[in-house]
């Protein structure tokens, strides 16, 4: 069953197109990465899936319903969340928001258990009583991932989850995601090409149009077109290394 079906979607912002005729399918157990340069419309596409932006043309369904309904089964982790570092809230209470049901409902013991489970998954359980603003960037990312996981979602949507964390934290973050993919589909938006060859199974290359959508292996050839500059990939077997070819560099 398709978790997300985006069909021929066009989005405009002040008459300039942000997305042009984009179609995308996310199935159960997919680990898909949408990659593309800044301004390619990656975040816009996620917001279309979440029903936060209405497309001018085309259709979107999430779990066979409208995004506003289906999104309740999505675990969403927004791009670097802007919040006041003095905001009076503990890590536990941030993650508890992921268990929100509807107006006038209250959080049950089951919700609290799910929160602790999610915090354990991201290895943040011991910091549960800390104020969120006192955590490091990498720790905050993990807490926001826990908030998305606490929903026990069918699909995890992550927008540039590692943009603000250091390379070591990035590696362990991706390894954490890999361990989650048995339980849910993952859709990851990033401009970090190094993730593609190592962790994800399939790739969608976006630069307002969708240039490629398929297994990760085939994607690397398409990246040049998307980024409009040559991208050289040093063998799939040697992970983590994606180099741009510079003029006068000669052969590497």
């Amino acid at each position, binding site marked *: 069953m398709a978790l997300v079906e985006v069909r021929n979607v066009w989005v405009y912002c002040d008459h300039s197109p942000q997305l042009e005729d984009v179609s995308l399918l996310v199935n159960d157990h997919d680990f898909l990465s949408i990659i593309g340069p800044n301004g390619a419309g990656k975040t816009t596409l996620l917001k279309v899936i*979440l029903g*936060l932006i209405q497309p001018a043309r085309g259709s979107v369904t999430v779990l066979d319903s409208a995004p506003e309904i289906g*999104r*309740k089964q*999505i675990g*969403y982790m*927004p791009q670097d*969340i802007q*919040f*006041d570092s*003095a*905001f*009076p*809230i*503990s890590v536990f*209470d*941030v993650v508890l*928001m*992921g268990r*929100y*049901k*509807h*107006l*006038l409902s*209250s*959080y049950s013991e089951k919700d609290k258990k799910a929160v602790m489970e999610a915090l354990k998954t991201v290895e943040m359980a011991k910091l549960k009583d800390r*104020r969120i603003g*006192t955590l490091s960037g990498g720790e905050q990312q993990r807490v926001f991932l826990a*908030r998305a996981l606490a*929903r026990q979602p069918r699909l995890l949507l992550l927008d540039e989850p590692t943009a603000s964390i250091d390379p070591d934290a990035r590696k362990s973050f991706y390894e954490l995601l890999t361990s989650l993919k048995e339980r849910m589909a993952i859709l990851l938006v990033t401009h970090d090409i190094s993730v593609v060859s190592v962790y994800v199974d399939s790739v969608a290359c976006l630069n307002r149009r969708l240039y490629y959508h398929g297994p990760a292996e085939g994607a690397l050839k398409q990246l040049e077109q998307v980024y409009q500059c040559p991208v050289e990939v040093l063998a799939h077997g040697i992970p983590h290394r994606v180099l741009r070819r510079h003029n006068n560099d000669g052969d590497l």
Partner: protein
Amino acid sequence: MEIFEYEFMRNALAAAALVSIACGVVGTFVVIRKIVFISGGIAHAAFGGIGLGYLVGISPIVAAIPFSVMSALGIGILSKKADMGEDAAIGVLWTLGMASGVVFIHMSQGYAPDLFSYLFGSILTVPRQDLAMMGILDVLIVVGVLLFYKELVGLSFDEEFSTVVGVPAQQLNLLLLCLVGLSVVTLIRVVGVILVIALLTMPAAIGRYFTYDVKRMMILSVGIGVIGTVAGLFISYAADLPSGATIVLILGGMLLCSTILKNVWRGRGYSHLCSL
């Protein structure tokens, strides 16, 4: 204590307690949601209602209720829908409210003896019927916040995520602004439209220094509000100073002291005493 035998003093103490509830509960959200200047706009716009009260001959405080709720909704809707931007919407309603208040008072032709008290507050002259109304507004405010507590906290922290998990963000944002409107009305008698914003920010700003739980922040802010308003009341009575302004200055002093205290604690490594 003989001064407690005066009715005006008992009323003033009751008023201090009632405004502290409003400013602690709503002020906490004003501070964490960062809507201080929206609240300032609503407060000044409420002056239009006071003027209308003079004109049609009803209690200015009662007339201020629909006026401040309407301006709260107006700011909320204009800033989102009219392509205007929030600060512009605030500026428009802030001044339109004040201007219509001035015109209404002029048109009412009568003498407006306590006009100054609506602008700057006068805790020593709060009449009984206004106390009853402040009590009713407090009940509405507390019930509204209790019912939608987790949604309001969620929206204040991360509006987008809250929307995705199903919080009706637009409606609750407007509800919060309406609660601000109601608390403005509650506070007018004590500090006046011009100084309302002090009571909606300072107790909560002090409270936030000492906790990282929104509920505790509310309770602390209510307590700080009581201390500030009661201290201001006695000092203004004893020294014959304008009460609204005295209360604001006392709260300002308390804010300064707690800022220093917190930094000293932090500098000495006692940060666990003040939640980091």
